[in-house]
């Protein structure tokens, strides 16, 4: 007998996501991905000063808090034909890269691990055995110690004994598919706490260049943090030394803790290399952290493009083939169910769902606040896994060196990266590669500064009088959850159209053009032993690192009859 199962709220994500599935005989037979939040930031952006846009767009998301600001300033710079000094590019890369690695680590430990790690068994762990196991796995990590693990075990035991479980309340701790030993669970919980400390430390790279995190500051035309090695308050040797220290901390943690933990935990869940297979088309415009104004031209010969229909060969990006559909979203198009390229997009919100409270949305053709981006008509996966897979297919030496030994260890083939475990693995491998890239970008910045390359802002196009009467631009960035693009039109010095096509709409959208979105595709079919404890589908949904505030479609309001006179 088919049963309806609703997961709402999907917790340990950013934003509001609802998953509805039908299940029969311990297997999911159909799935719907439903974004249940809409903010309308794009409508707010209408008629604003394009130099201010980043500070609005950034608030699309406070988790990937850097990425929308970067895509925004890139889009505006592309529209205005505005070039950015080399040092500012490198500083942006350092801010974005450090935030992305932090984001990957937080995702794994704080948002995903509890799908695999059973906290309730920690009191049974043998501390000495846990230390022995951790040291054999991660010999270079100082906090794999009897003192640390013992303290964590005591703390967790105290909470469980108190009966007040705090964030562990109502977890699925008696689910039969938790597989790790108490000792491995103890290691993971200890590293969960260590990662909290670590992320607070290393994110200060954002603070040094952007003033704060979340929501650091950016600037059209460069970065606001001036470099003067002979001044106390600017970027100087003290601050550069601090950044270098944090980059070492980043490399140390992702190489010596995060990646080994991921491999160890996935070792107990090898079937997840064959679970959660999703849409077999992929997009990657560069390695993690690559960002640009206009058509992407990533370094090192990386070919920006797509792989379609399961064929692992790169097809060069055609920006006109990026289109968005409103088939399953609560929006209305003038010409009905067609795909529209973002620069000529047209959207009016049109809620047709039931009045809350509601029980079930999926009977309706439209069931989400997300629009559905398609490439050449196809649903595509974006994110760390597609980027790693693309680099691997292109024969990138660093990626092959990183990926091959791990696949061998897990007994997996490259195409199995399209799976729940593969997406988790791709994220960890990418974090290690991005940590190395941070060091390279930092070295380039330092070398440049020594050679006198200290300009961080280009004043040439700052004044409105230098801008064209009408212009359009696009900014791309390969960010934590996948390919991000912001599309802007500037008319008479003001924004006349703003659109963001974001990773969590690519991955988390609903149906369009006769195809499920990637979250949906990954869940059909899918194991589900206990419908009241949907642990297995949560593993797969979390493997995409959902960020549903980002997934809210950003409207093009060009031609709308809404009066904007009150703006500004």
């Amino acid at each position, binding site marked *: 007998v088919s049963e309806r199962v609703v997961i709402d709220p999907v917790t340990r994500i950013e934003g509001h996501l609802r998953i509805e599935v039908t299940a029969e005989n311990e297997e999911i037979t159909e799935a719907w991905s439903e974004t249940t939040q809409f903010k309308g930031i794009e409508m707010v952006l209408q008629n604003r*000063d394009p130099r201010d846009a980043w500070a609005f767009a950034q608030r699309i998301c406070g988790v990937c808090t850097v990425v929308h600001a970067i895509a925004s300033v890139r889009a505006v710079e592309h529209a205005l034909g505005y070039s950015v000094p080399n040092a500012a590019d490198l500083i942006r890369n350092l801010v974005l890269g450090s935030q992305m690695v932090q984001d990957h680590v937080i995702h794994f430990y704080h948002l995903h691990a509890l799908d695999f790690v059973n906290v309730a068994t920690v009191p049974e762990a043998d501390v000495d055995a846990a230390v022995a196991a951790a040291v054999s796995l991660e010999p270079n990590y100082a906090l794999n110690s009897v003192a640390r693990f013992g303290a964590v075990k005591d703390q967790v035991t105290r909470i469980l004994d108190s009966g007040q479980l705090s964030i562990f309340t109502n977890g699925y701790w008696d689910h039969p598919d938790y597989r790790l030993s108490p000792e491995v669970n103890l290691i993971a919980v200890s590293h969960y706490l260590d990662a909290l400390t670590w992320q607070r430390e290393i994110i200060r790279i954002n603070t040094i260049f952007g003033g704060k995190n979340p929501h650091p500051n950016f600037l059209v035309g460069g970065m606001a943090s001036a470099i003067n090695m002979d001044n106390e308050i600017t970027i100087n040797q003290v601050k550069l030394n601090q950044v270098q220290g944090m980059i070492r901390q980043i490399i140390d943690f992702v190489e010596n803790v995060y990646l080994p933990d991921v491999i160890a935990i996935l070792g107990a869940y090898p079937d997840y290399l064959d679970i959660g297979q999703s849409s077999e088309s992929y997009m990657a415009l560069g390695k993690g952290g690559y960002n640009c104004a206009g058509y992407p031209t990533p370094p090192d010969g990386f070919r920006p493009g797509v792989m379609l229909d399961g064929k692992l060969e790169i097809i060069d990006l055609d920006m006109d083939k990026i289109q968005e559909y409103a088939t399953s979203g609560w929006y209305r198009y003038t010409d009905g169910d067609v795909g529209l390229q973002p620069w000529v997009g047209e959207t009016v919100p049109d809620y047709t769902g039931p009045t809350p409270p509601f029980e079930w949305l999926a009977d309706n053709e439209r069931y989400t606040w997300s629009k559905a981006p398609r490439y050449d008509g196809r649903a595509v996966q974006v994110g760390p896994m597609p980027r790693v897979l693309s680099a691997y297919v292109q024969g990138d030496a660093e990626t092959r060196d990183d990926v091959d030994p791990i696949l061998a260890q897990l007994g997996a083939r490259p195409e199995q990266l399209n799976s729940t475990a593969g997406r988790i693995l791709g994220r960890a491998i990418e974090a290690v590669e991005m940590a190395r890239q941070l060091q390279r970008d930092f070295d380039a910045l330092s070398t440049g500064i020594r050679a006198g390359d200290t300009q961080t802002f280009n004043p040439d196009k700052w004044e409105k009088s230098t801008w064209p009467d009408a212009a359009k631009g696009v900014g791309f960035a390969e960010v934590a959850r996948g390919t991000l693009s912001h599309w802007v039109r500037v008319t008479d010095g003001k924004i006349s159209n703003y659109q963001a096509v974001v990773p969590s709409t690519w991955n988390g959208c609903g149906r369009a053009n006769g195809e499920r979105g990637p979250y949906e595709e990954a869940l059909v079919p899918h194991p589900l032993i206990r419908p009241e404890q949907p642990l297995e589908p949560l593993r797969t949904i979390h493997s995409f690192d959902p960020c549903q505030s980002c997934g809210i479609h950003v409207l093009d309001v060009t031609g709308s009859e809404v009066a904007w006179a009150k703006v500004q």
Partner: protein
Amino acid sequence: VIIPDGDLWITGDETLGEHLDRRGVSRRRFLEYCGAVAGVLTAGPLLAGRAEAAITAETIAQSLSGMEKPVLVWLQLQECTGCMESVLRSGETTVEELILNLVSMDYNELLMAAAGEAADEALIEANKQPHILVVNGSVPLADDGAHCTIAGRSSESILRESAENAIAVFAVGACAHWGCVQASSPNPTQAVGVDSIITDKPVVNIAGCPPVPEVITASLVYTLANGAPPPVDGQGRPLFAYGDRIHDFCPKRGRFDAGQFVRTFDDEGARSGYCLYEVGCRGPDTFAPCPILRWNLSQDWPIGAGHPCIGCTEVGFYDRFTPFYEVLPDLAVPGTGVEADATTVGLVGLAAVGVGVAAHATATTLQERRAQKASEKVYLPLVGELPTQKRPLDSASGEDQK
């Protein structure tokens, strides 16, 4: 019936049972309350490990009165999760100290293990108990609340249910405070802040987009330690964090007073660490602790890193303070400015800010400003509302809080 009135039950000092005894809440009233709770409890956390035991008013009373930590319900409504991320960055008190040692955070979508129905049950159960309520996010009223639903319910209904038994309510972040970016013109979803919905009990607004992490955690710890939330200003913002303007404690204040300004980013002024007023700094009109506490383990702060303050702790900052890179307009909030003559404000007056942006822009040296302004009244850029002190919450009567 067991909501304390200004005499909050304090972590660690006493169990809830001891507290109620001391407060004179009778055993019978407590059991009545627990009887009502019994109807909705299944095998929740309070009864973990003894699920086989019959759930009765008596067993619940036993569990509740043995509770050692206050329950914390932390909602995320229409928002971006930046405020929870900010909490993750708090140096002292850390998030792990807060949720593992000081309180039992029985509901928070970002961090909790449970999802779906199990999460929703945790919320319903926590709402039945006296709890501290923290809210991130605004409440969108358009389309009957369809712009932000959780478990199929509107943000407004979720908020109202959670506030009912709350002993203290904190609206954390600009969205919960007044609606932030989505409430900016034209406010497409009709987003409002928490205190537009919850009007029958005090709401403490922890302002900022996001707030400084330590201000969020300190507000909670203050409440746990003192048995009442901190005193607040006219906007409901705690005085310990929002009592003064950025400008009042800005380390670049000396540059401002001396007329040393950045004129363009990365110019000689910028490379000398000069004041950012002329490239748009909103510090003179923004009440916030940033220059004192600074951000991310006190590493630095926006002005320290060369970018002007955008005024994110102020209501309406996206409409009121944009375009961000133009000099703070002296008419941002007409008629609420502070007037003073140069002789009483000393050097500040000499800097002559705000006396017509055009006049200001033409004055290029301190000497010129001095000559120009010596004999006339100056209009300081203190255009925000001055904090009028609300009645401190700890003097609120029991009736106000039910």
